C-alpha cells in the first residue's frame, strides 16, 4: 500500500522519445488511469513503473523508496498483461501460485492465498485446468488473480480488457473496479478507451506524445479540459471545434465564427481581454446543443441556424449533423427524434459549457 511518484521520466528508444518528461503523483490506494492514443507512451510509462524498462532520465518512488533502477522483483509490483501471459504449461492453480512459490511462501499459505484470489475472481472451479481449456474471459481472470495473490504494493494493468468482446468488457470493468475497492491496492491502469477510463478511474491522466496533457477526475477532464487535445479525446461524439475572431465591445464579447456570431456577457470580457482582435478556437460538446423546436430557449444560450446534413439514430440518442454554411456542427440529443435531411433547424448552444482555446498554445482560456 504505497503512493507512487514519478519525477520527470524520460525514455527513448533509439531516436524515438516514447516518454518525454512525465511527472505524476499517485495516492496510496488510488485507481488512476493512463489514457491516451496508441504511441502516446502510456504503456512505456507503465513498464518503467514495473521495472521492465529503466528510464533514461527521472526517478520513480514508491513511498519514500527510490526504485528507479531496481528490477521488478524488488519492487513488490504486480502486473496484468494485455495478452494475459498465462503460462500454457502450468495449471491455473500453478499460474496463480507462481509468484508465491518464487517468494518461497510455505505450501499451506500458498494454498490459502490461491484459493482466496480464485474466490475473488470466481474461478475456483477452474484451478485444475490448463489455459488452453479456458475462454478468453477466464484467462483474463486468472491473470488478475495471479496479480493480486501477492498483495502487491502497486498493481499495474496494461489494457487488460482490450482482447475481450464488448459485453464481457463492460462486465469486467465494474468487477475490476469493485475488486480494487475491496483490496485497496494502488492501481495504475493503461487504456486507450476513454469510456473505460472515465468509468473506472478515480483520476485520469490523459497522455499524448509522451507527455501528460491533464490529470483530474473524470468530471474535471470532461467539464474542464485544459487543452484541445484532452477536450477532443474525451467525449463521444467528439467536441465541436471552430475558429472565431474575438471582438470586445463594452462589457460584451463577440465571437465571430463567420456563419454566426456568439455573444458572451459578464466575466468573459475580463478573461478574454488579451485576445481582442485575435482568432481563438471555440469548442462546444454535441450534448450541450439543443434544438429550439424541442426545448425552449434557456438562459445563457446562443442561437444558430443551419441545414441538417446527416442524422444518426442510435435509439437512446440521436446525433444530428448540422451544416451552418462553412462548417458542420454535431449535436446530440437524447431520445429518438426524426429529422429530415436538408430541412432547416435552429439550435441553441449552451454557453455555460462553452470552451475557448488559444489558437497557438491550444490551452484553454475558458
Amino acid at each position, binding site marked *: 500500500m504505497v503512493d507512487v511518484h514519478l519525477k520527470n521520466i524520460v525514455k527513448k528508444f533509439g531516436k524515438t522519445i516514447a516518454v518525454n518528461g512525465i511527472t505524476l503523483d499517485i495516492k496510496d490506494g488510488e485507481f488512476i488511469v493512463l489514457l491516451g492514443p496508441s504511441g502516446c507512451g502510456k504503456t512505456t510509462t507503465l513498464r518503467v513503473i*514495473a*521495472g*521492465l524498462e529503466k528510464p533514461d532520465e527521472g526517478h520513480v518512488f514508491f513511498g519514500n523508496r527510490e526504485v528507479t533502477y531496481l*528490477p*521488478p*522483483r524488488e519492487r513488490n*509490483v*504486480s*502486473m496484468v*498483461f494485455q*495478452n494475459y*501471459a498465462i*503460462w*500454457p*504449461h*502450468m495449471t491455473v492453480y500453478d499460474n496463480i501460485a*507462481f*509468484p508465491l512459490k*518464487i*517468494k518461497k511462501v510455505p505450501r499451506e499459505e500458498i494454498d490459502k492465498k490461491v484459493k482466496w484470489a480464485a474466490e475473488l475472481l470466481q474461478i475456483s472451479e477452474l484451478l485444475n485446468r*490448463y*489455459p*488452453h481449456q479456458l475462454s478468453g474471459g477466464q484467462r483474463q481472470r486468472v491473470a488478475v488473480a*495471479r496479480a493480486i495473490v*501477492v498483495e502487491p504494493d502497486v498493481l499495474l494493468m496494461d489494457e487488460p480488457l482490450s482482447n475481450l468482446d464488448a459485453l464481457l468488457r463492460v462486465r469486467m470493468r465494474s468487477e475490476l473496479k469493485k475488486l480494487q475497492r475491496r483490496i485497496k491496492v494502488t492501481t495504475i491502469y493503461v487504456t486507450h478507451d476513454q469510456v473505460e477510463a472515465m468509468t473506472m478511474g478515480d483520476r485520469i491522466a490523459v497522455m499524448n506524445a509522451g507527455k501528460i496533457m491533464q490529470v483530474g477526475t473524470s468530471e474535471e477532464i470532461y467539464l474542464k479540459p485544459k487543452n484541445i487535445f484532452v477536450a477532443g479525446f474525451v467525449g463521444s461524439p467528439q467536441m465541436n471545434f471552430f475558429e472565431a475572431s474575438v471582438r470586445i465591445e463594452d462589457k460584451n464579447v463577440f465571437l465571430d465564427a463567420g456563419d454566426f456570431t456568439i455573444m458572451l456577457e459578464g466575466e468573459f470580457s475580463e478573461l478574454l481581454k488579451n485576445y481582442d482582435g485575435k482568432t481563438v478556437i471555440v469548442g462546444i460538446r454535441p450534448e450541450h446543443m439543443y434544438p429550439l423546436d424541442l426545448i425552449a430557449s434557456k438562459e445563457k444560450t446562443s442561437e444558430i441556424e443551419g441545414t441538417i446534413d446527416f442524422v444518426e439514430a442510435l435509439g437512446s440518442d440521436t446525433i444530428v449533423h448540422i451544416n451552418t454554411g462553412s462548417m458542420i456542427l454535431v449535436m446530440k440529443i437524447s431520445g429518438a427524434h426524426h429529422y429530415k435531411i436538408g430541412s432547416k433547424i435552429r439550435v441553441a448552444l449552451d454557453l455555460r459549457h462553452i470552451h475557448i482555446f488559444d489558437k497557438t498554445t491550444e490551452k484553454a482560456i475558458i
Partner: protein
Amino acid sequence: MSKRRTDFEKYVPYLLILPALSYLIFFIGYPLVQALYLALFPNGRFSMENIDYLFTSPFSRFEEAFTNTILLVIVIIPIQVAIAIGLAMLFNMKFPGRNTALYIIVLPLTISDVAAGLIWYSLLSSNGFFNKLLINLGLISEPIQFFGYQYRPMEFLAIVLTELWRATAIVFVILFAGLQMISKEYIEAAEVFGATVWQRIRYIVFPMLKPSLQAALIIRTLFAFQIFGVVWILAGRDIPVLAGEAYYEQVELKHTGVAAIYALIIALISVAIGYIYIKLFKAKYLEV
C-alpha cells in the same frame, strides 16, 4: 453449381494427395517388404542363415558395428544437445552481426557427411592444420595420429569431433525456432512476479521448449544411428558401424540378404527410439 460438382469437390484433396502418397507407399513399403524377403528368404525358402552369418561368420563385424554405433550415439548426442541449447539461448539474444553469425552456424547443415569427413581430414591429418599448428607452437614434437588402424581410439575421437561440428546445427535450428516462438510476455510476466534469470529459464523457458527438444532429439538420434559417410571417410572399416556394414556387405561382398538385415535392424531401432521418445516427453499444452 450442380450437385455433382460439389460432390466431386469433396474428393479433390484426396486426389491431390494420392500421387504423392502412392509413390511413397510404393517406394518405401515395397522395399521394406522386399528387405524382409531378402533377409529371411534367401533362396525362396525361410532360413535364418543371414542372421547366423551376422553372429558367426568371420567376415561379419556385426557385434562391433552394433556396439560402435551405440557408443557413438551415447557420446555424441548429449554433448550436441548441451551445446545446441547453449547456442540457441545465446542466439536468442540480440547482438550485432547476429544474422550473419546465424547463417554461418547453420552452414554445416548444407554439406554432406562425406564432405564433412573430408574437411576434418584436412584438419586432423598428419600434415593437417592442427598438427602443424601445435608443432609450430611447440606444444608437441610429433604429429598426433588420428588415422590408421592402429590408432582406432583416435579415429573414434576424430569421428566424434566431426559429428559434433557437423550435426549440432540440426539440433540448434530446431531449438532456436522453438525458443523464438516463446512469446516474450511469458518471460516478462515471470520477471515481474519475482523470478530470477535462472528461475525464468527453469520454470518457463525449459518447459515451453520441451516439444522442440523432443523433436530435435528424435530427429538427431534417428540420424545418428544411420551414421555412415563420416565414419567411412575417416576410418573406413576400422570402426564398423551398422550402416557402413550394410554398405560393405552389399557392395563389396554382394551379400544382399545380410545387407537387408542390417537395413532392417536400423529401421527397427529407429521405430523403437521414436516410440521411446514420444512416451518420454508427453507434451500436451502445445498451443499458444
